[in-house]
């Protein structure tokens, strides 16, 4: 024991100084714990929590974004399908309308042609009658000139009779 004391004495170890060092260290421990470790560890923990929260949020946002884009795609597909059907319907109805118009036009044209043909026929008959009348007049005048007398009613009748007779014989 005395040997240990001697050694310690040689190294300048004194109980008072030892206690002073211990007290000093414990004081430092207290100060650092209170003013350094606690706030820094707290800040680190808070940052960790925040990062975890942020990551979770980011994941959620991504998920939502995906859902929204899927929804949009779906809507687009639906709209395009609808547009297609509408266009198809419109095409068929337009075809029908065109066909109807075609048919009607053809009918009208043929009717018009018929009518015009009829009117042409009538005109021609009328023309024929007119020409016939006029021709008779002309023949009469020519006969007057030839026979030198006015063809009367009587002559007329005789002439007709003669001609008929000639035709019959």
């Amino acid at each position, binding site marked *: 024991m005395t040997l240990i004391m001697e050694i*310690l004495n*040689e*190294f*300048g*170890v*004194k109980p*008072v*100084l*030892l206690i*002073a*060092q*211990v007290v*000093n*260290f*414990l*004081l*430092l*421990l207290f*100060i*650092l*714990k209170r*003013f*350094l*470790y606690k*706030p*820094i*560890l*707290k*800040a*680190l923990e*808070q*940052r960790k929590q*925040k990062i975890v929260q942020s990551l979770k949020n980011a994941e959620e946002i991504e998920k939502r974004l995906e859902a929204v884009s899927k929804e949009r795609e779906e809507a687009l597909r639906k709209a395009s399908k609808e547009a297609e059907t509408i266009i198809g319907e419109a095409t068929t109805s337009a075809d029908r309308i065109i066909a109807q118009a075609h048919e009607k036009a053809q009918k009208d044209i043929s009717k018009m042609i018929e009518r015009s043909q009829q009117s042409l026929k009538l005109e021609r008959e009328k023309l024929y009658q007119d020409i016939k009348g006029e021709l008779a007049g002309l023949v009469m005048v020519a006969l007057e000139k030839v026979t030198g007398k006015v063809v009367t009613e009587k002559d007329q009748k005789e002439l007709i009779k003669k001609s008929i007779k000639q035709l019959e014989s």
Partner: protein
Amino acid sequence: MDIEIAAETIGHIGSFPITNSLLVTLATTGILSALAVISSRKITPIPSSLQNFWEFIIEAIYNLSEEIAHSRAKIFFPFVMTFFLFIITANWLGLLPGFGTVGFKEVHEGKQVFVPLLRSINADLNTTLALAAISAVATHFFALKYLGIWQYLKKWFSLNPIFLFVGILELVGEFTKLISLSFRLFGNIFAGEIVLATIAGIFAFVVPLPFYFLEIIVGFIQAAVFMMLTLVFMALLSEKPGH
């Protein structure tokens, strides 16, 4: 230049002796406390330079203690961290110019001796012995706290003669830990001081530079070793047996 193995007394307050290493101990404590208070006054979510620096060190050592002590890390961490900070600050502070060279002459037992005003504090056995004692007492206190008195005593004493013998050996080992912790730190730093003084005595320009680098590394390593050993001792002793 001669370096005394014991810290020199530079004055008295009443009957209380003020050694040069005690002076530097107070300075070290002051520096660390001031840094702590300054950086903790404005803790922001986005760290600035000083906060960044503390966060880096504290996070690294906290993760280390969590790895070794798991759930007990929260209790051990302040001790372990303070050991590291105090020892490394003291060691590096002791490398500053003025340590061991600025002082006064005193007539001591008829001889004129040089008394340096500042002394690297871990080159004083008082400091390292105090640190080792705190480490040991805290280790056993935590062991008692986590194991309970019965399991704690069972670590050392057993009815089985072989285990009893081993237990007593380990009890002796606890005192060895105290001595090894204190003398390792003291020896390394004190030897460093002597080396630096000797080299500076041979040629004071440029030549001591590599030795200064060496001492910077030694200062860090000794702080880390003290911290790691304390952490491991704490974790081992408070571990439940059969685990």
